[in-house]
């Protein structure tokens, strides 16, 4: 086995292990960190393919931007909710996982179908072989030039789509005036009773309660009395969720 193959094996193991732990971690913060490990492993694979520009861009976009936003979102959530139970014995955890559709059989089926589709696609596609070490346009100038000439239209369409997503996100999070008045009059958000029925929570980890808890915290800053009510309601929702 050559040196390159050994490094590839190590990087592949890092990527696969990281990806596996992203979906199996009990705590969402651990998932985020393993996601970062996976991205770093992917960047290493790009370097192995002699494409350092892609490696750096990969780190910059995925670690520097996307994972940062993920961390930002985690930090804005209720830390008590995010830490999860953590103290369950492994056997009990395994039993709960296998019984629940979210952690047990659905992911297995989905992953199996995905693997089958990807393998079938690979077999049918007859991908062209690029000799290792051949620079595949790994030049920032070339990439920039292509992006503003040959791929200018897809590039602009992608940015327009992102802009639309941004505007949509702002529109969704913005509360309109009527709702605002409702809140100050003491009508607690209708989302709270729904979350009380915590049966959607597969292993009793209280995920569904996270949302009303967050909204409770927000309304807590909005108006004094209703904020307290929402916080209490969210607190009970959290209890049931556990």
């Amino acid at each position, binding site marked *: 086995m050559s040196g390159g193959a050994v490094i590839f094996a190590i990087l592949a193991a890092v990527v696969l292990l990281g990806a596996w732990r992203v979906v199996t971690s009990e705590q969402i913060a651990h998932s985020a960190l393993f996601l970062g490990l996976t991205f770093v492993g992917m960047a290493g694979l790009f370097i192995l393919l002699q494409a350092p520009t892609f490696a750096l861009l990969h780190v910059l976009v995925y670690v520097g931007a996307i994972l940062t936003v993920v961390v930002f979102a985690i*930090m804005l959530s209720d*830390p008590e909710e995010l830490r999860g139970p953590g103290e369950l014995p492994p056997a009990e955890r395994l039993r709960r996982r296998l019984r629940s559709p979210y952690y047990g059989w659905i992911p297995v089926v989905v992953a199996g179908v995905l693997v089958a589709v990807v393998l079938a696609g690979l077999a049918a596609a007859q991908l062209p072989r690029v000799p290792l070490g051949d620079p595949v346009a790994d030049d920032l100038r070339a990439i920039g030039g292509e992006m503003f000439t040959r791929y200018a239209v897809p590039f602009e369409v992608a940015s327009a789509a992102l802009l639309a997503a941004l505007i949509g996100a702002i529109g969704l999070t913005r509360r309109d005036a009527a709702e605002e008045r409702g809140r100050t009059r003491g009508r607690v958000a209708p989302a709270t009773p729904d979350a009380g029925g915590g049966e959607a929570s597969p292993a009793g980890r209280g995920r569904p309660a996270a949302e009303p808890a967050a909204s409770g915290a927000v309304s807590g800053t909005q108006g004094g009395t209703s904020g307290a009510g929402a916080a209490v309601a969210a607190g009970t929702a959290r209890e049931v969720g556990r």
Partner: protein
Amino acid sequence: MPEGLVAVLWAILKATIALAFIGLNFMFLVWLERKVSARIQYRVGPYRVGKPHGWLQLIADAIKMFSKEDVMPAAADRWVWAAAPVVVFAPAVLLFVILPVGPDFGVQPDFNLGLLFLSAVSSFTLFGIFMAGWGSNNKYSLIGAMRAAAQLMAYEIPLVLAVLGVVMLAGSLSLQDIVEAQRTYWFVFPQFLGFIVFLIAAIAELNRTPFDMAEAESELVAGYFTEYSGIRWGMFMFAEYTNLFTMSAIAASLFFGGWNGPLLPPVVWFLIKTYAFVLLAMWIRWTLPRIRIDQLLDLGWKFLVPVGLLNLVITGLFLV
């Protein structure tokens, strides 16, 4: 000796020199910060250990740091907590790779993706901070890490915008080419707006007062690294001062001609300009009070980003 082996040995030698310099520079900067803060506050600073101006104090500090007990909080998230100092420390050292210390001198200053490397590697620091804040399982640490995450986006974008103006003028991402391009005039003159944006964003990136909301010792008890002691705490400090040096060196290279200068050898010019920025950062730290986080976000999004974009437009017009 075969060609490849020579290259490897040469690279190892350069890396060793860089690491030795980083260590010495760290101790010197800690001592310097104590002296500068003392001078600004009408004190004397370290004076007793070592005769002229307490220079042995830095050795004493280092011995103390190494011999202290390493305490892990009982509720800590063990692996995350233990790995956090390493994740903060590694990028600080890695950034030394791209610094142009002199003409064709440095670890790898002609790396043609230098500034891309800078922004990619420095994005790891946030993860170290997040891991420290999360792993400590302490509300102050968590608030500190949360502030760091919220802050990051407000100054990363202006920082990149400010650097882009210089890249447009020099036509290269390699720091060496950028310094070479400033033989006739410094880029601070055409890029004055960019320089102002860079300076503010860089101080925010370094988490130094007035932008040190993430550690805010008076309200958060040092924020994300409250729970660290001994050498782990030392690694956070190490990363902080190494980043201070690196950012100063990058500021000097991007806007003030790097190692270009008359009479003195280039390495001396590089060090003079870099330490001038280090002193400026210390001066700012001990002069200004800490601002609030919403003020930083306002500053970042409503002032630095528009000014950075304006600077790019002006630079583009200038080039056309």
